């Protein structure tokens, strides 16, 4: 190119490091760099960067949520929230509840984490903040029963949206994944088409383990969307680029903080901008 082969190699090394540190993963990064090499190899840094940026934006455009993010399809519209321990499920439910409330919808929360210390109390605080009730069950009780009670109450009260919280769990723990499948089945038994949404909450700090998470959670309960949390930190959440190729699950929202208003709709362009910032 203009600067010769050494500069070219240095540029691609730098771009490779950028992609790796953003958690894009070996295979995804190599595919993208290969494309950049084909389409702009030998051109200057700006041209190569532009091709790379567009390639990523193209992949992410396929997983941008289509339609109104707060659209509801059921009465009640049932949203099941799942994911590994500490990813931000309970906090995300609190934020979603507030958004639906602000849009004039009535909301009911289901304290489906019957296991962890103070999980119920944590969700109840969010319920108070968002202005909605929380259906609870006994400590150590059956989470499917709480899920069932929640949608039953939502239907009886004519509530618009029911958000079901679940306990964090690691995807390699089969009995816990079976428990999740059971919760999803039980929801469908009581309300036709429920859960209408099944959201996997994924921490933006997650590395390549995100692939195992997405695959195995999807197997337990078909996923309709992802919520990528903690994007207000330094992690870029680049795993979603590879996930877009492999599983094509739409990223619905992103969490950008611990406050009730810290939830945004996913934008592929904003995400790519942040990646190259």
């Amino acid at each position, binding site marked *: 190119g203009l600067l010769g082969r050494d500069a070219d190699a240095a540029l691609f090394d730098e771009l490779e490091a950028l992609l790796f540190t953003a*958690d894009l993963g070996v295979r995804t990064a190599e595919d993208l760099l290969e494309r950049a090499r084909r389409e702009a190899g030998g051109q200057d840094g700006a041209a190569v960067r532009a091709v790379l940026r567009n390639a990523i934006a193209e992949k992410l455009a396929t997983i941008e949520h289509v339609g109104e993010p707060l659209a509801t399809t059921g009465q009640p519209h049932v949203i099941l929230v799942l994911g590994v321990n500490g990813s931000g499920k309970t906090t995300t439910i609190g934020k979603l509840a507030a958004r639906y409330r602000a849009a004039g919808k009535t909301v009911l929360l289901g304290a489906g984490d019957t296991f962890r210390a103070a999980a119920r109390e944590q969700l109840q605080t969010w319920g108070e903040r968002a202005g909605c009730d929380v259906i609870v069950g006994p400590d150590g009780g059956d989470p499917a029963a709480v899920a069932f009670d929640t949608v039953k109450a939502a239907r009886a009260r004519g509530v618009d949206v029911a958000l079901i919280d679940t306990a964090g769990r690691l*995807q390699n723990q089969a009995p816990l994944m079976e428990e999740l499948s059971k919760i999803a089945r039980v929801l469908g038994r009581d309300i036709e088409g429920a859960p209408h949404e099944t959201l996997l909450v994924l921490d933006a700090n*997650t590395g390549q383990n995100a692939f195992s998470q997405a695959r195995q959670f999807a197997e337990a309960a078909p996923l309709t969307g992802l919520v990528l949390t903690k994007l207000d930190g330094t992690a870029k959440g680049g795993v979603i680029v590879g996930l877009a190729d492999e599983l094509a699950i739409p990223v619905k929202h992103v969490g950008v903080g611990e406050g009730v208003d810290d939830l945004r709709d996913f934008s592929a362009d904003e995400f790519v901008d942040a990646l190259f910032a």
Partner: protein
Amino acid sequence: TLTRGFDGARERLAGVRALSENNVDEALREVRASLLEADVDFQVVKDFLGRVKERTLGEKVETRVKDAGGQTHRVTPGQHFVAVCEQELTELMGPVDPELSVADGVTSVMLLGLQGVGKTTIAAKLARHLQKKGRRPLLVAADIYRPAAADQLEQLGRSIDVRVHRGETGEQPPSICARGRALARDGGYDAIIYDTAGRLAIDDELMVELEAIERETRPANKLLVCDALMGRDAVNVASAFAERIDLSGLVLTKIDGDSRGGAALAVKAVTGVPIKFLGTGETVDRLEEFRPEGLASRILG
């Protein structure tokens, strides 16, 4: 695919008579891909491969070795290569140092880290661990932000019969910790664990709070709690925390998952402090003192 890299390297070297630059480079490529997929930091991988290459090509290969039982075995070049990888990795992960420091007769521990990594759970686990070693621990709930955080620590404390000190309404974390420390002294507790709120290392206000807690309590142990599921950013996070707080050790949680935990390597490398404990499950008994060999073979795959 998790074991692909290492098996790949073994395959490349199967039937090889002698290690040469060519076949070692091929084997290293397999190991490189495997390590990158395990979330090991780019630079750490580069340095590691460099050392392995130097050693495997530079050392005289022992083709006959005695094992622990005195039996003599033939070692193939491929086996030698794998052994060097394991040794180098174990060295990167080591040393074995699960001891907690004591100051003025008290084992004081401050836990810090990002949101959701497992600090509160580790606090309870450490309390139980110290209790089993004959100490009388006090837990301090210094997270005033997360809804029901103090309740969470209280419930965990109750389950192991450990007292939990929490703040009054509106009391700030440095004050809660200072009063917790006084309570420990007056109440004859010889271990105290401060559970702090999850925070971003780039949140200056919260980092100032952490420094204030440190000043008020002068903990003998400052442990950065890291999640084994984390990716590359773990290095940035760890060095940002290490810049503000003089860390004494690391705790790696959620090791019971299927993440290979490679980010731990870079975190250890950038902070220079030992991994003290592993969190191996959700219940309060799931704490292990760190042994490098286990994690090393897991990261290598």
